[in-house]
């Protein structure tokens, strides 16, 4: 299943609920577009809920990195929420787990935004 996203806002934080696969092609483009759209509207607090993302490839990892740096370079914050074991393991072996701010509780993740 390709990536599907839905958007909600809680206390000024834009939560992107993601499900499916973030892979080369459509999945990566969907993620890129939604982050670009949020930033374009001035929404710089972004929480990617990856709880239903069951697969990510190296292109998808690259897209997460791109989203992270793009938001950061515009003075915003991007955090990750609810990693599945597969995504968690991939971020561990690529040493990206400590680069991202990874949270497993939505309420505390929202509070962590400045």
């Amino acid at each position: 299943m390709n990536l599907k996203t839905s958007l909600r806002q809680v206390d000024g934080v834009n939560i992107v609920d993601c499900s499916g696969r973030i892979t080369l092609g459509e999945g990566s483009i969907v993620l890129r577009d939604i982050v670009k759209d949020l930033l374009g509207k001035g929404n710089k607090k972004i929480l990617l809920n990856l709880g239903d993302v069951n697969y990510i490839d190296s292109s998808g990892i690259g897209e997460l990195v791109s989203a992270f740096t793009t938001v950061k370079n515009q003075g915003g914050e991007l955090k990750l929420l609810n990693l599945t074991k597969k995504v968690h393991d991939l971020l561990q072996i690529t040493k990206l787990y400590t680069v991202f701010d990874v949270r497993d509780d939505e309420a505390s993740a929202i509070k962590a935004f400045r």
Partner: protein
Amino acid sequence: MAGDRFSYKLDSTLDTVDSAEQTASRIASESGFGDDEVMQIAMAVREAAVNAVLHGNAYDPEKKVDLEFERTPKALVITIRDQGKGMDMAKIPDPLAPENLLKTSGRGIFLIRSFMDSVEIHPSQSGTEIKLIKHVHGPSEGGKEASQ
């Protein structure tokens, strides 16, 4: 695991990448690997197919990707061959180097090496061949890197 060989000739498209991954997943599963190993093999094949389609053949409709699976009693051996200019091994970055951590690409070969027991890359002027080996009950069950 019985000895078998399967080969496919695929177009240089994104569909090929998905197809290679799905085929690898099916054959690995049929070969008796566990769920985690099946996922690792399928992902390694996907990454190798991405390299072949994008970096090797550069989506050229005239160029094909050869995908071969060989099941032996001891291992699953997968060979992916493109018709590009040959991968420049010197240009493959270390994605774990601090200066590369935030790069948006360059992790494919690293993931392949992490997930397979043995990886051989043979670049030539007529293309790149990559051979992936996963041993049955191999020493790195669960993945060399993932188990650390």
